[in-house]
């Protein structure tokens, strides 16, 4: 019994290939049925997202399993196997387990640590299990994957730093102010980027949004959306002191805010700190402003640097996550191996009870006028002897750790001649 994983992802295949092999959610139940029927997998699951297409399955044999799966993909999508076969990876046993755990934990994602993949994996599992396409092994495999993904998330800092410019701005604001409750944000210019960042800030408990724009109606529109206040563009400089956070993204060719305006605002604010975010290109705020005490100015490049740095940090944290995943792979393999004693136990029981049956029937054939009640009692006695006899060998098999020691199962199989019928 082998666990196998075949697929391609953003690293191995370009989007053109990925989209040709992708499966639509609504066709998955049908695909799963065909997959099991055509390839002989006893359990199967398909994970199809914009970054990856992967088949997970349980196969009795590894002989030409790879080829059968490729043929299935080629047949189903009506593409020549040669067009995509070299972009596929095929993992078996511990490697397949390792791969699945890494994918669920978002270690294999384009943006390491992004949270969507876990949800996508869970959806794929829901579809497969509704189709009864997953059984004992895949069910446990997926539950373990989800558990590990959660462990990775809580025990490492893999997902803790912003990897988008607008969210990086929110994190910096928290580093400056501590908490954002009760703070005020001013948006200068009503661009899309500004809007996105403002939305992040509002989610963090910002008290009020002030919006200013050269066209007042546009400012009013945005202000309404955030239940904020619109300011005419020609008076906003006088109101700068009200804002703790200023987001600027106008199309102005020159600086619209310089050290003079900010110094005045600071005086009115009694030096309470201000965080200025300049996402305009060309820039709106004179960089000299950053030299003032209690003023923190970040332009779009600075924010981009923060994001790059955060991505590096995520890669560092990913190393710890990998260790965690490796340990879990080992545990899962042990469980899988323990499954392998189950058939031995089953066969042993069948063999002994078959002998009991055979012998009692032979004996019963010799009686001519046996009371049916007595016949029943005789059969029960013979079965009891069989079961009592089985008790010790079975508990012996169960007690041994099948992952580390396969000898007991082999010995029992030899003694009772379970392998030749």
């Amino acid at each position, binding site marked *: 019994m082998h666990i196998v994983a075949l697929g391609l992802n953003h690293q191995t295949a370009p989007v053109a290939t990925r989209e040709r092999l992708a499966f639509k959610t609504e066709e998955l139940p049908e695909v799963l049925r065909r997959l099991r029927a055509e390839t002989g997998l006893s359990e199967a699951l398909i994970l199809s997202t914009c970054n990856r297409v992967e088949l997970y399955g349980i196969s009795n044999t590894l002989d030409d399993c790879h080829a059968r799966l490729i043929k299935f993909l080629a047949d189903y999508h009506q593409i020549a196997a040669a067009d995509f076969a070299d972009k596929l990876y095929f993992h078996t046993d511990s490697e397949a387990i390792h791969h699945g755990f890494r994918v669920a934990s978002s270690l294999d994602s384009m943006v390491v640590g992004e949270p969507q993949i876990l949800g996508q994996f869970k959806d794929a599992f829901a579809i497969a299990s509704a189709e009864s396409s997953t059984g004992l092994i895949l069910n446990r495999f997926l539950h373990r994957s989800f558990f590990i993904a959660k462990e990775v998330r809580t025990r490492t800092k893999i997902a803790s730093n912003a990897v988008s410019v607008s969210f990086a701005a929110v994190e910096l604001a928290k*580093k400056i102010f*501590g908490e954002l409750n009760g703070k005020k944000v001013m948006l200068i210019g009503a661009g899309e980027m500004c809007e996105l960042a403002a939305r992040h800030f509002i989610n963090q408990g910002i008290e009020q949004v002030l919006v200013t724009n050269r066209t007042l109606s546009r400012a009013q529109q945005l202000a309404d959306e955030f239940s904020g206040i619109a300011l005419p563009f020609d008076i906003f400089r006088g109101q700068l002191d009200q804002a703790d956070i200023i987001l600027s993204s106008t199309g102005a060719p020159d600086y619209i805010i310089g050290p003079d305006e900010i110094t005045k605002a600071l005086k009115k604010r009694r*030096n309470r700190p201000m965080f200025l975010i300049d996402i305009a290109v060309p820039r709106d705020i004179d960089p000299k402003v950053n030299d003032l005490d209690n003023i923190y100015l970040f332009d779009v490049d600075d924010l981009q640097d*923060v994001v790059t*740095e955060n991505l*590096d940090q995520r890669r560092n944290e990913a190393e710890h996550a990998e260790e965690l995943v490796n340990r879990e792979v080992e545990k899962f393999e042990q469980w899988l191996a323990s499954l392998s004693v189950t058939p031995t136990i089953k066969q042993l029981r069948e063999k002994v009870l078959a002998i009991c049956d055979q012998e009692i029937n032979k004996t019963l054939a010799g009686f001519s006028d046996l009371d049916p009640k007595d016949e029943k009692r005789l059969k029960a006695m013979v079965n009891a002897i069989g079961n009592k006899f089985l008790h010790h060998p079975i508990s012996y098999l169960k007690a041994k750790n099948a992952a580390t020691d396969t000898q007991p199962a082999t010995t029992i199989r030899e003694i009772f001649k379970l392998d030749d019928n």
Partner: protein
Amino acid sequence: MTTTIYIFLLCGALALYSLSMVSGLLHLLRPRPQKSLWCKRFISAGVTLHLLAFVERCFQAQTLAVTNLHESLSFFALLLGLVFLLIYRKIPLPTLGTFISPMLVVFTLWALATTHTITPQPPILRSFWLPLHVLLSFAGNAFLVLGCIISIMYLLQEHLIKKKQIKGIFRNLPALGKLDESSYLCLRCGFPLLTLGIISGSVWASFAWGSHWSWDPKETWSLITWLLFAALLHGRMNSGWRGRKASLLTIIGFAAIMFTFLGVNLMLSGLHSYAAH
């Protein structure tokens, strides 16, 4: 025999402070919430042992055991630890423990390295005012020293943000707003205590020596320290001083405290000198 118990407790406290320093540093390098918790737990445990040691010492000496250099250093470390725990309850700053534990280690270690025989007190100094004066001044100074450490963290963090060095330990330092807030809190707690400490000292001096103020070096330097912090408090309350400027002044104030506390006693001689014994 009893001294052994005292030294044993003090060494235990030192060991716990060292453990808190190690877990604090580990937290700074690779932050995990559990680690900062451990740092604080070790400090709490260390302070408890230290407090027991101090009480034991007071029973032996039959007075508030702050009479020589050894006892002063040890008592100061104890108060610094206590004050840290108090401020932490009010404004929890996870990495503050990392910065405070080395101070605790240094002061306790230094205390253990100096002679720790009990100094018999001259009768002239025996008064209800002496322990009060010592307690108030030390507590005030402990708050102000803690404020200084927080200010150092503030300057570090501010420098990193200004230079856009958003990496390494930047991630683990507390937010600027929180640092400034707790530094201000330390000032508001420490300054009144220091003021009362100086007043109680002056009252006691009038009983002991018959004059309120005799311009001995320690008195002069505490006055300088007091004036510095008075200016800082005034600036913070009325002129919107905060952040960098306030932090720099706090650090200058810290230098003045350290000179008043140790420099005066070790370098200059006068009424407050330990060297006299």
